[in-house]
């Protein structure tokens, strides 16, 4: 059985010592990190810090050192996310830190994705996501994006305050079969309906499946505005997107 001292990276040792309390989880994390090479531990440590620049540089270096892409994903990125999940669950960190870690994960995955592609592993589909016009709350949308990416979708994030034209241009540019719109305000929620109208005016409504979400949105509103689906949380967002694909298939 491995011991904490078998982990060469000091930061990882500290993280396990300070933040992981459950004996099974301690054991599992020690086993994992004691087995992985030092560079993977460094990637993991940077991801736990939410340091996207370092994850970017180290992932690049690892690939140049001919380390397997899946090893980087499993032993560096996902192993680190496991620790982030525990810290979040136990209230040592909060949503902003989690989103910083998700950004760092994305920085690493940006190098892995072309290799996946070259190996014939294509993303499930491209999803365009954005907050509607006038809406600046983006945390829920970002969590949806994190889930979608973690489930194998390619996501184009249009950010906040997105106009009809920006949604339309993005769907066109990326030939995206799925669009997700989010609104957190009662005053901006009707803009989802307006965007759907704009897709009809552009004669593109049949080209794209539209899902909507955000705290004020309900199934009833989604039906009224003519969306194809509603999702109440990030898990449903993924389920809805996958549902669209199975309908298309």
């Amino acid at each position, binding site marked *: 059985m491995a011991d904490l001292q078998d982990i060469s990276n000091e930061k990882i040792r500290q993280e396990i010592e300070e933040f992981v309390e459950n004996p099974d989880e301690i054991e599992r994390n020690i086993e994992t990190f004691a087995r992985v090479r030092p560079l993977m531990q460094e990637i993991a440590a940077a991801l736990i810090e939410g340091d996207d620049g370092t994850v970017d540089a180290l992932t690049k270096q690892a690939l140049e050192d001919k380390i397997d892409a899946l090893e980087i994903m499993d032993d560096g990125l996902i192993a680190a996310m496991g620790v982030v999940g525990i810290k979040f669950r136990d209230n040592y960190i*909060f949503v902003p830190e989690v989103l910083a870690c998700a950004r760092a994960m994305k920085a690493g995955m940006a190098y892995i994705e072309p290799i996946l592609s070259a190996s014939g592993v294509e993303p499930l589909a491209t999803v365009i996501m954005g907050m509607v016009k006038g809406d600046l709350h983006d945390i829920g949308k970002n969590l949806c994006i994190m889930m979608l990416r973690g489930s194998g979708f390619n996501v184009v994030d249009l950010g906040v305050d997105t106009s009809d034209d920006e949604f339309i241009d993005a769907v066109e540019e990326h030939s995206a079969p799925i669009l997700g719109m989010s609104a957190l305000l009662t005053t901006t929620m009707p803009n989802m309906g*307006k965007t759907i109208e704009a897709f009809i005016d552009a004669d593109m409504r049949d080209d794209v499946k539209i899902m909507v979400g955000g705290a*004020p949105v309900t199934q009833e509103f989604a039906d*009224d505005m*003519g969306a194809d689906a509603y999702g109440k949380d990030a898990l449903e967002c993924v389920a809805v997107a996958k549902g669209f694909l199975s309908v298309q298939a």
Partner: protein
Amino acid sequence: MSKPDDSSEKQTSSVDPKAYQESLERLSKIFTGMVQHADEVSKVRCPYRDRMDFCTAKFKCRNQISGGVGEALETCGHDGVFDFRSAWESDPGNYQRAKDKIAKSGQHARRERALQKRGSPKA
């Protein structure tokens, strides 16, 4: 941050799709726990408030307390113990207006779409 370049081309081995699928499932399981917890936590704590109680929002909020000259982030001054979600029912007027607007745009959208389908089918 540098842009991903051709390092992937230097990679000799390829990825086994089945092994990748298993990795993705592990990741998805971790994320599932995270988003469930995020939904819960944000009922009582502003999701823009980080672990040091700094505000990470890129907007003005009345709860922000300026940390003085040179402070990159403002401190969150909210007591962080109430449920923000109850605020949804706070303005019935706004809610009704949104409902009306959505119903109107929905009707229009359905009409237009039906016309389009009848008129010029896309190649």
